[in-house]
């Protein structure tokens, strides 16, 4: 029996008057990889960014329904959003290393969260760079700019940076869309490894990727009113081999999207 870590319950989100996603109920299982697939504009990213409340940075947004993290409503006024984002980390579409050295990118979170001990800090750098299989590639240039490494390496650095603050969940918003196929495969391998420790939610345009890596898949689509809805959710192998809805079949067989 899988344990639920995140649960959205009739969750609706809108930008101003425009409803982006409506009535989405979904359980995310602990230490599993859940992919969210669907055509452009179906609200996948909006949904993903609802889990760490990144959407509200834009302003003029509203929601109804709930998202529960360990049975706590993350939109409750008692919730410290800064604390929430420490526990629910995020990796973005484009690798976004900070304009600092490779080392300082990893240490950025831990240092600001209060870690001061020099040897602990240097252990952290090594541990997380090894974790994302970047150590051997960059161990001789830890003090060089994070922009000096390749896009795939930058994205792995960003994953390491996110992991270094010990998140329980990692939200990944099309993390490979800016990368070449080899770099993509390395990130996928890494995600499989990480799923023994963290829960991963990934938005992807790449159906093969969803099929390869995820345990569960959620398929989103839009209706005529351009509102994103959850069409079907289930075990990845069921969604891809035996979808229940016609829309899902059409999408995964490439008839649209």
């Amino acid at each position: 029996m899988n344990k639920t870590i995140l649960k959205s319950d009739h969750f609706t989100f809108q930008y101003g008057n425009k409803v982006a996603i409506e009535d989405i109920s979904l359980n995310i299982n602990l230490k599993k990889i859940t992919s969210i697939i669907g055509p452009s504009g179906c609200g996948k990213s909006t949904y993903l960014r609802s889990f760490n409340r990144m959407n509200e940075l834009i302003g003029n947004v509203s929601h109804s329904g709930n998202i529960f993290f360990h049975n706590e409503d993350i939109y409750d006024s008692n919730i410290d959003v800064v604390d929430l984002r420490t526990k629910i980390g995020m990796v973005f579409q484009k690798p976004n290393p900070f304009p600092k050295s490779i080392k300082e990118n990893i240490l950025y979170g831990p240092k600001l969260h209060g870690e001061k001990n020099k040897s602990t800090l240097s252990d952290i750098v090594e541990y997380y760079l090894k974790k994302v299989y970047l150590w051997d590639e960059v161990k001789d240039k830890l003090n060089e700019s994070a922009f000096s490494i390749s896009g795939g390496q930058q994205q792995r650095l960003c994953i390491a940076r996110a992991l270094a603050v010990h998140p329980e969940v990692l939200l990944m918003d099309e993390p490979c869309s800016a990368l070449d196929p080899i770099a993509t495969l390395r990130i996928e391998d890494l995600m499989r490894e990480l799923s023994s420790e963290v829960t991963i939610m990934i938005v992807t345009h790449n159906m093969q990727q969803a099929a390869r890596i995820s345990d569960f898949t959620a398929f989103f689509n839009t209706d005529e009113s351009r509102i994103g809805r959850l069409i079907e959710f289930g075990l990845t192998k069921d969604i891809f081999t035996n979808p229940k809805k016609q829309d899902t079949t059409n999408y995964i067989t490439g008839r649209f999207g």
Partner: protein
Amino acid sequence: MSTFRHKLIENSIYGLLYFCFALIILFLVIISFYIFKNSAGTLSLSFIFEYPRNGMTEGGIFPIIIGTCFVTIISAIFAIPIGISGAIYLNEYAKKSFFTNIIRLSIRNLAAVPSIVYGLFGLAIFVKTLNLGTCVLSAGLTLGLLTLPTIITASEEALKNVPAAYREGALALGLTKWQVLRTNVIPVAVPGIITGIILSISRALGETAPILFTGAAFYIPHLSLNVLDQFMALPYHLYIMSTQHHDISGVRGIAYSTAAILILITLILNIIASTIRYRYRNAFK
């Protein structure tokens, strides 16, 4: 035929732009040449380090240079922290509303207010109302007010140009807004902010009108080292030497040399600004 026309248009545009560019350079060269030519014979190291003598007909302009530096430093101490803080508030914390847009527009407009208006304002507020009298402090505060709009506008632009990915990436790590600003936004904006500061200061340095009623003196026989003293300043000294002195034709050389020093100080400040910008820009590329 049409190739010929395209080429003709291309070449005419190029020619026109080149001409305008050459014109700018030409004026710059003529002005500099004229000033430095006329300061020949007067301009020397001792001119920089000596006091004026003999009713300012001989000697150097050391206390005047010091006066200008002093008042500029006072204005910077006042304007830089307030200007940067204002920009951070406007760009990062203020809600986007009609009201904040009006404020932003007003700040932009303040940059275009004639400097004599700042001078009179400084006289009314600092000299009279706050009763500071005519002194370095009053003049420095007035110059500070003059530089504020430019500092705020430049800093706001610099903050706006920090990629959203830096903010999002840092916020997603579970940091507070201020932590993100302090460590990942403001440092990235520093080159733009510094450039704005130095450009506005080098403009303030050459202003006469704002210090005219607020602290600049015709002649003081000693260095002004107290903020409540009156002081001599380069632009005002230049004005005196060109129009108010009893022997204008006799002090021409001093006037031109003063202008040359003013230009040199501005040039040095601009070189510093470019160097800082260049250093920061290349720090992590």
